[in-house]
């Protein structure tokens, strides 16, 4: 490990991508993630890479589609309304099994939405915001260090499975500065992209990147292949942080920056004799269901805290599967749940 550097989350994403060997970035300006584009615009020429400011989010994701088709590591980043525009490309790339990384620094919605932090794109990310039966791996870092590590890993997962990986953060993570320690060398998996459209050089059959098989039997077969891949990922790529859950009176579930607030609540509650556990899904898809099952019998209840109207809440309820009651506390519109409000909610649930 090298020395610690104080860096902004958004810039760390850019640096991490470069370290992961990504030399192709395509984006369109939107707050609060634009520093990623600024960073790439500055750094790409230094490493012989490509930075294109596209005419739209739609174009940017399709440039990623092209670059990924050609076999290189490619990145695009945006924020909620821009990610909505990218859904077409996300669906196509998922079906065409193209590996690429998409960053969503979520802002509050629906609609244009303010630029303040929110987590209201959870459903869009994990349930498929685009059309068709597809999945993306969705990573939810909660610190600048994790933004770095997970961005590098996102490219590895993408290449390993030929899948899109989304890094989902919010304005807090994107805008905040925290110390980050870069490794001397990144672990980059090497895969033979013999499927890529990079020219036959007249020594192989031509490669075709497509998302359509007009014959329904072939299309179904392709869908089954995708589903089989998703099952493999679900059984081997789950990431979760469990904290203080043994003997917990209540287990709170939160992801991203909200999980950090919950950690403060844990210490506050401890002073009042209440034991609060935390399950922090790091992969939002695949969702760490088994972790919830594992602890389902421990607490009196579960509580999910999110900056939305209750989205991951549904997945937690499904994972807990009726064994315990699951409560929800959320804020929207760019409002951030306070420690006191969360603690009050916990006390209300536990009737203490």
């Amino acid at each position, binding site marked *: 490990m090298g020395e610690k550097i104080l860096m902004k989350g958004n810039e760390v994403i850019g640096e991490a991508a470069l370290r992961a060997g990504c030399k192709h970035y395509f984006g369109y300006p939107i*707050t609060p993630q634009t520093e990623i584009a600024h960073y790439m615009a500055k750094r790409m020429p230094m490493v012989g890479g490509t930075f294109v400011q596209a005419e739209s989010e739609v174009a940017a994701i399709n440039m990623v589609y092209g670059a990924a088709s050609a076999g290189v590591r490619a990145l695009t980043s945006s924020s909620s309304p821009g990610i909505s525009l990218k859904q077409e490309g996300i669906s196509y790339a998922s079906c065409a099994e193209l590996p690429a990384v998409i960053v969503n620094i979520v802002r509050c919605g629906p609609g244009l939405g303010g630029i303040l932090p929110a987590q209201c794109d959870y459903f869009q990310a994990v349930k498929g915001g685009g059309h068709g039966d597809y999945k993306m791996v969705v990573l939810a870092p909660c610190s600048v260090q994790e933004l770095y590590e997970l961005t590098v890993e996102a490219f590895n997962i993408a290449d390993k499975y030929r899948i899109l990986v989304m890094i989902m953060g919010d304005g*807090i993570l994107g805008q905040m500065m925290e110390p980050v320690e870069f490794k001397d060398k990144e672990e980059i998996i090497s895969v033979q992209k013999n499927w890529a459209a990079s020219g036959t050089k007249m020594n192989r059959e031509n490669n075709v990147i497509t998302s359509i098989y007009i014959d329904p039997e072939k299309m179904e077969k392709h869908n089954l292949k995708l589903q089989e891949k998703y099952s493999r990922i679900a059984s081997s790529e789950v990431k979760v942080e469990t904290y203080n859950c043994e003997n917990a009176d209540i287990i709170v579930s939160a992801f991203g920056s909200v999980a*950090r607030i919950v950690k403060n609540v844990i210490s506050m509650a401890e002073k009042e004799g209440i034991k609060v556990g935390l399950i922090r899904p790091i992969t939002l898809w695949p969702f760490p269901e088994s972790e919830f099952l594992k602890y389902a019998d421990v607490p009196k209840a579960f509580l999910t805290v999110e900056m939305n109207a209750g989205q991951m809440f549904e997945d937690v309820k499904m994972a807990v599967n009726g064994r315990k009651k699951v409560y929800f506390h959320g804020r929207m519109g760019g409002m951030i749940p306070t420690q006191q409000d969360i603690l009050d909610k916990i006390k209300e649930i536990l009737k203490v």
Partner: protein
Amino acid sequence: MIKQDIVIAGFGGQGILSAGKVLANAGMLEDKYVSWLPSYGPEMRGGTANCHVVISEEPVASPIINDATTLIVMNGPSLEKFEDMVVEGGLIIIDSSLVETEVKRKDVEVFRIPASKMADDMGNVTYANIILLGKLIAKTGIISKDSFEESLKKVLPAKKHYMIPEEVEALKMGMSL
């Protein structure tokens, strides 16, 4: 456990965000856990700017400060907006050249320093934020003067390094008050 939750607030252009960066960086150089979170809302445009800096001996849970141990303010509206978030017994450090409003709270320690006037007398009004940081450092010991100086080297671009000796002077001035 030493932990400071510092809110610095004022107008855009007063070096609010960079004061926070220098502070956080200095904390990091001392192997403390730190975070810096700017206000990045529309209020940044010509309006108020503020940042939250956490410096702690334990990992920083949330970078968002609800209860500040120290509030540094460089304009009147920020004092009104944020004075209630200071914890009982906390610090409020005010640039009295710019803020006439009195602090309503009776349960906090208040320092009124004519930082902008002092900085202007030094020949550069932009050192006002550093003078105020000097008071914070002297009062809390959250970082050392040496780390501050070291941090300036990291945060300031090379072409501004010539300012460092004067900035250190400004810091000392703030510390001696």
